[in-house]
């Protein structure tokens, strides 16, 4: 109970305080302490969820089960490391004159509103409130993306605002349709959009309406996830946003958007055969994976490189959820955590490089190993993790997803081509086809990604670039994330494993 209240009110209070505090040091202190409080509250909440299964409180407005708790763990963990990173990043930007000191308060206000909206979207019991909160994240972040007020960042912010608003308006129609099907069963009650109420009667809902609803919701929230072909805002926004914001967008906001899709999937799978939502997710996932890996080949801007890698990883997680079953869903969820860690690390690193080299072009960055040794190690770890090399944890989750695809049992399909030719596609054939495509583009991606990163790390730094890297508080999250990525590659701690297994059961409704 208290933990839920802390998680919801903490960011709001901190946001309002940020508007009145003038001194930078106090602002950072408030920010860090808030994130610490959220992390403590989240630990307590996890304990409660593990003990009781799920928590429903505040007049059934808040519903936290293993799935939403797992997402909250990601939000608070990345948020906490972000607050440490921002300490050195924002101070540096103020010192360099990129942003005026008095705008720092506004930055933290928007940051905390963003955080609040994400926590609310994850905790909301009602699908409608979830929608409102997710639209809230769009509104809070659009000015964060455009915070440097350059022409490019304004353009990125505008595209983000318009595309995501449109996407999410479509999702709202999906929510309306879900409500349309549920008031038939539950009556005209205000609880007819609550997940706790819906999941119990899901098999009585009209399948045709739910089909349409899921398509609208997938396209709508898929825009926020950044699935191809609704992804065009994403590289612009990630490359123009300040580094800690890009880390939050890529690591956390995408995860929350995936969560909202999963909620609808769990519901729809009760009324329809799971192949319906599964095939949709699989198609969008594969498409995102393929397109993103091709775009990675032609990137010359390292932040855009990481942005396309996000699209690719979300595609991968979607393939996992699309195949479904225990292994696929587990792999997909675990991959969300690993991607959040690796991608936040990558964008922190990008922020460090940008401040030293003053360019986003990969060609302009040489000799990172000499100029910024700690950052060089971190970018190598992030790069290896993002292409799925062992011993880092994304390797484990990607392996799970691939093996789930290999082991899936699609029904054999018989296709009538023309009048005389009948084609039978067996399930082995289809699995083999998907895996071949998947691995091929995985190799493409590996080459493109590691080539770019290698080019940045080795060589001689350009003239006029300072060498050596003094230790700052902003380096702490880098170290923590490297350790986490390595550690999760070897052992999965017991609480996280239990949480993940329970979350899988929530999605599969077992």
């Amino acid at each position, binding site marked *: 109970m208290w933990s839920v209240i802390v998680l919801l009110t903490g960011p709001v209070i901190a946001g309002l305080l940020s508007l009145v505090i003038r001194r930078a040091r106090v602002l950072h202190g408030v920010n860090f302490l808030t994130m610490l409080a959220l992390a403590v509250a989240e630990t307590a909440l996890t304990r409660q969820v593990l003990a009781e299964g799920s928590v429903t409180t505040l007049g059934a407005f808040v519903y936290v089960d293993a799935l939403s708790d797992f997402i909250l763990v990601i939000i608070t963990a990345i948020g906490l490391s972000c607050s440490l990173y921002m300490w050195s990043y924002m101070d540096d930007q103020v010192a360099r004159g990129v942003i005026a000191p008095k705008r720092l308060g506004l930055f933290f206000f928007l940051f905390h509103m963003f955080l609040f909206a994400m926590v609310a979207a994850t905790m909301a019991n009602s699908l409608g409130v979830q929608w409102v909160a997710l639209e809230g994240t769009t509104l809070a972040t659009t000015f964060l993306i455009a915070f440097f007020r350059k022409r490019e960042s304004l353009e990125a912010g505008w595209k983000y605002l318009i595309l995501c608003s*449109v996407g999410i308006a479509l999702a709202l129609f999906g929510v309306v349709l879900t409500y349309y099907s549920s008031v038939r069963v539950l009556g005209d009650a205000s609880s007819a959009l609550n997940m706790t109420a819906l999941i119990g009667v899901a098999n009585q809902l009209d399948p045709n309406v739910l089909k349409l609803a899921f398509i609208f919701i997938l396209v709508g929230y898929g825009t926020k996830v950044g699935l191809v072909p609704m992804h065009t805002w994403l590289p612009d926004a990630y490359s123009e946003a300040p580094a800690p914001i890009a880390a939050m967008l890529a690591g956390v906001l995408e995860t929350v958007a995936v969560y909202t899709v999963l909620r609808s999937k769990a519901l729809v799978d009760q009324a329809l055969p799971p192949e319906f939502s599964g095939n949709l997710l699989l198609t969008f996932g594969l498409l995102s994976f393929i397109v993103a890996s091709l775009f990675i080949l032609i990137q010359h801007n390292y932040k855009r490189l990481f942005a396309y890698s996000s699209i690719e990883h979300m595609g991968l997680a979607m393939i996992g959820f699309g195949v479904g079953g225990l292994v696929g869903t587990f792999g997909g969820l675990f991959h969300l955590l690993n991607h959040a860690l690796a991608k936040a690390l990558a964008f922190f690193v990008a922020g460090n490089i940008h401040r030293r080299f003053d360019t986003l072009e990969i060609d302009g960055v040489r000799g990172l190993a000499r100029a910024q040794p700690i950052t060089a190690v971190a970018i190598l770890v992030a790069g290896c993790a993002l292409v799925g090399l062992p011993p880092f944890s994304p390797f484990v989750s990607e392996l799970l997803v691939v093996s789930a695809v290999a082991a899936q049992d699609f029904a054999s399909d018989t296709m009538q081509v023309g009048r005389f030719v009948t084609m039978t596609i067996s399930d082995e054939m289809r699995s083999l086809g998907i895996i071949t495509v998947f691995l091929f583009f995985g190799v493409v991606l590996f080459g493109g990604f590691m080539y770019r990163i290698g080019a940045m790390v080795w060589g001689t730094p350009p003239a006029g670039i300072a060498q050596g890297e003094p230790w700052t508080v902003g380096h702490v999250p880098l170290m923590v994330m490297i350790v986490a990525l390595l550690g999760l590659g070897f052992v999965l701690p017991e609480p996280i494993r239990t949480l993940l297994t329970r979350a899988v059961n929530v999605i599969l409704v077992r």
Partner: protein
Amino acid sequence: MPVSTHLGSQLVDLCSVLLLLCCFAIVAQRRLSACVDLFALQSAFLAATAALVAFLTGHRHIYFAAALTVVIKVIVLPRILRKVIERLNVSRELGMNVNIPAGLLICGALVIVAFFITQPIIPLGYLLTRDSLAIALAIILIGFFTMIARQKAITQMVGFLVMENGVFLGATAAAYGMPLIVELGVFFDVLVAGLIVGIYTHRLQDAFDSVDTSTLTVLKE
């Protein structure tokens, strides 16, 4: 209930069709201020539809939503948008991605698509508001199309608001309105989105000397 269900459903249909008509008028209109006025008119029809449904069904909370529609979508948002237009000194949309006759034809096709998509789920609906669901989807699609076809930041915002109107009509028609808390949240989001667009156009004007989104081409592959 004093009014017979048959007459009631005819009236609701009439109001929904008027909303759809406003969509077509927006697509056919080049003057920005007229687009905003048409949006305000459409919202007024939406409020009327909602009030009518509230009256015919006796669901009190829909009156509340109708009142909010009048305040936010008929009065506040159009006023914000008009202020933006005045300040920016742009009155007409010159370049369009799709010209007006072609746009109208596409919108006609979108209406057919909307009726086609909703065909299987219409029979489930309440007798009173059955056909409005298809019209709502048509309005959403046309709003979507407007955002693609137009280049000025203002008309893109109008397109978004039209989509929102469509969703709202859908909610009223399909389920006699969403739960109150959700409706409040949606209104809040729409209002904030309007304010943000107002600030944004100002900044775009400063940075690009234009609110034409076709000038936003710095970022590309």
